[in-house]
């Protein structure tokens, strides 16, 4: 097993500053903006982006949290049932621009589930996607509007995102762990 750091705390701070600026640039009317973090690590990322936007534009953006467990398409095949966490969308999202925030974009299936979940809360004007890492291997036609870092990866690798709020440290690492060989 090998481990490589691809994002340091300083890298992460600068990346989130850039994404916040991109969100400001693209959304002319910031009053319509809602940031929604996907459990677990999307939530602190959304809060940090909102704090950045607040400091650049002196405007507070509502931040929500979304749990997608009940919308997953692979529920029936999972050995371990995902623990459902409480979603919390603090404002009516009808007519709003919702920016979904997640740590890693991979197959795109979580994002499909998140969009279905959001639609049950209302009819947003549009949905945008911000991710810290895009690692490729999409299985659905999904792309991100704001990307922290593209990391072309192999399926044998794991991208591990750790955040101060959930793991005590800001860091992104690639762990290479080849699938164990089958016993003869």
């Amino acid at each position, binding site marked *: 097993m090998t481990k490589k750091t691809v994002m340091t705390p300083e890298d992460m701070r600068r990346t989130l500053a850039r994404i916040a600026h991109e969100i400001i640039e693209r959304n002319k009317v910031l009053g319509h903006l809602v940031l929604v973090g996907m459990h677990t690590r999307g939530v602190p990322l959304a809060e940090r982006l909102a704090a950045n936007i607040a400091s650049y534009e002196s405007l507070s953006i509502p931040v929500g949290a979304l749990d997608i467990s009940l*919308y997953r398409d692979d529920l029936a095949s999972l050995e371990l049932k995902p623990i459902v966490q409480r979603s919390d969308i603090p404002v009516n999202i009808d007519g709003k621009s919702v920016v979904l925030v997640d740590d890693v974009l991979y197959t795109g299936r979580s994002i499909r589930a998140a969009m279905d979940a959001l639609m049950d809360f209302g009819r947003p004007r549009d949905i945008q996607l911000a991710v810290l890492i895009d690692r490729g291997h999409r299985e659905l036609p999904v792309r991100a509007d704001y990307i922290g870092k593209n990391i072309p990866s192999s399926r044998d690798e794991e991208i591990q995102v750790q955040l101060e709020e959930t793991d005590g440290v800001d860091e992104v690492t690639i762990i290479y762990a080849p699938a164990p060989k089958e016993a003869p």
Partner: protein
Amino acid sequence: MMSTLRQKEAPALPKNPDATAKTPVWRHSHILDVDDFSPQEIELIFSTTDAMKEVLSRPIKKVPALRGKTIVTLFYEPSTRTRISFELAAKNLSADTVHLSTSASSVTKGESLIDSLSTLQALGANVVVIRHSQSGAPYLAARYLEASIVNAGDGWHAHPTQALLDLYTIREHKGKIKGLKVVIIGDILHSRVAHSNIWSLTTMGAAVTLCAPPTLLPAGLGHEQKHFPKVSLEPDIERAVESADAVMTLRLQRERQQSGLLPSLREYVQLYQLNESRLARAKPDALVLHPGPVNEGIEISPGVAHGPQSVIDQQVANGVAVRMALLYLLVGGKSI
């Protein structure tokens, strides 16, 4: 716990042993009673219920988690709120529901429980919610069926989902269960609700006091017993409710008086009815619970049943969320 992509997109069993210890693992394929639930499992049910309550607060109260699953409610005894609660819970999770009422089925032609169950299995039921007048019927069902069995009340024995929603309602108001004084008043002997509540309350660390006429208490209670949780007995209602955090009254079935266990209903009302002056001896913010249906003026006075301390309607509302959580935990994951 670490986040990895694999876990996010298709969680495998956690490799980190610490993560295993922190993550409560659901190991039940049936809900038969609460006596085999650990405090961690009950906490997992409650955190899942919190999430389900949020679903119920949305404009669209439906999530696709149990799409394609079939849930059958098989009721050999009359019920309104429990059956409707299960049916709504299943529908909110997008499962298909079928209700089999025994008065309109082959049961009237003499079909046995096991025959009915194997028919349901052959028809592809994933969960069978069963209420039966015989204690233990759901256990028999669980032995014969591959489907998950949920006990919605069996004889005098158990009513686990009611106990869990009672516990959840108390926790919602008090923030905890541990250390609370909970009083259960009424026909403990014949009450499956009381039996399951005694297990779940004591498992979570509440101190339970029972108050009932001696003829309506299980024999041998109050002595040290290996297979029954430790409870206090207090036949005097005023002493029993003294500084209680929650008071639960049970429905008095009129047949009890006819069968000679009570001298008269009037005497029962005089000695055991929860009324305003008796409730005043409990803590000022004590909760009043009742599993329903309520006999107003018998076990509880109308003023208390509809008073500011009553959470009877919230119990009904929480019932749907608790049952959604249980159905999700039973069949939301790997298909059976």
